[in-house]
């Protein structure tokens, strides 16, 4: 009987993920027989109790892997970019666990694999990927939803996994899911106050996007930072190199964890290389009128004319 448990192998960020907890937002792996890249398992991590109980080391690199504790939830260990171990407290639901598995754990795992995780939405326009970053509430997800309505496909709506292969930045698609802001969804938020680094894992709810999802690696062609302004109309501004470096550093997913992963140098090199390569823009959008469809149209016009100018 022991061997009859059938575990689904899922796919996200170009990785085949075998999990002991259900991850229903992830599609099953597309190529049968693909080797498993990542294992998610439930096991005791009590040997790290002392480490994760201390404020200084509750998120820290240990011999076994990157170990961290979410109070009232679980202790997690992310090892070698290939194993996520969860030691959950009694009564914690798998729904709650997977917020952290697909959030912080996946961010750490991607960094361990040498990928650069950017926080934001990525969309495919004419076969090229464009990343949309910004502070919480800037309107990334709303803009992404508007792109979807206009017929463009989603690559990621939270963690944008970027690899830099032979001088070409590529985005590995996340999973077909769109998160939208919902201020009233705060029954999780209560217990998370004080853990602001992880807060956004609670603050959104998910909408599946089905066939509007792009699931092949795709070259990253540009980055847009979305900022709220008092200006009455939306406008788009091209950014200089050092400003590009700034937005890539500022919008790195879970950037506070990077020093604790001992990956500062690797991260900075990757960001510098990307800043030298990618076009970047700032979208000023009005707080009074957020005209997402108008911004979609202007972004598409801009990237098409830039692409023609480069070709």
């Amino acid at each position, binding site marked *: 009987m022991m061997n009859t448990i059938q575990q689904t192998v899922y796919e996200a960020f170009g990785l085949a993920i075998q999990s002991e907890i259900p991850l229903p937002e992830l599609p099953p792996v597309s190529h049968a027989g693909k080797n498993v890249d990542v294992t998610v398992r439930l096991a005791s991590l009590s040997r790290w109790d002392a480490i994760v109980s201390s404020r200084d080391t509750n998120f820290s690199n240990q011999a076994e892997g990157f170990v961290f504790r979410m109070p009232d939830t679980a202790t997690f260990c992310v090892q070698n970019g290939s194993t996520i171990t969860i030691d959950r407290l009694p009564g914690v639901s798998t729904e709650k666990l997977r917020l952290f598995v697909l959030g912080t754990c996946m961010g750490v795992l991607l960094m361990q694999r040498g990928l650069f995780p950017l926080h934001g939405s990525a969309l495919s326009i004419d076969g090229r990927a464009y990343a949309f970053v910004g502070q919480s509430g800037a309107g990334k997800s709303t803009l992404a939803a508007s792109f979807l309505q206009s017929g463009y496909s989603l690559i990621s709506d939270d963690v944008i996994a970027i690899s830099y292969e032979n001088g070409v930045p590529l985005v590995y698609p996340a999973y077909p899911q769109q998160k939208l802001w919902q201020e009233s969804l705060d029954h999780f938020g209560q217990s998370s106050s004080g853990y602001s680094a992880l807060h956004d894992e609670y603050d959104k709810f998910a909408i599946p996007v089905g066939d509007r999802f792009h699931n092949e690696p795709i070259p990253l062609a540009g980055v847009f930072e979305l900022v709220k302004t008092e200006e009455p109309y939306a406008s788009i501004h091209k950014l200089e*190199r050092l400003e590009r*470096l700034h937005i890539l550093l500022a919008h790195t997913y879970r950037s506070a964890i990077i020093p604790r992963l001992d990956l500062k*140098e690797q991260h*900075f*090199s990757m960001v*510098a290389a990307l*800043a*030298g390569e990618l076009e970047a823009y700032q979208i000023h959008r009005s707080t009074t009128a957020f005209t997402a469809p108008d911004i979609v149209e202007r972004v598409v016009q801009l990237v098409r004319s830039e692409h023609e100018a480069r070709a």
Partner: protein
Amino acid sequence: MTNMTGLDQQRFVQNKNYIASDMNGEKVMLDVQSGKYYNLGTIGGRIWDLSAQASTVDEIVARLLEEYEVSQEVCKQQVTTFMGQMLSEGLVDIDDQGTSSR
């Protein structure tokens, strides 16, 4: 430039608390402690590289004259100014380990 004259005899050396990286030919620097970062540009980046070993302005100028088409006078003036800026930002330190270098 009079306040820079004192720098003439000093040996400058990279502050190792910075991470340096390449941004399409330009040198960018990250201060590990503060998170501040800088773009030194192409030639600024070359001067930074030359400061890996404690060097005087004259030693750096001599190397740059081999690599770039520039007069000795202009080069020295600009390197002196640049070194003064790097020193005030803490990107380089005055080397007080004596004057010996390989």
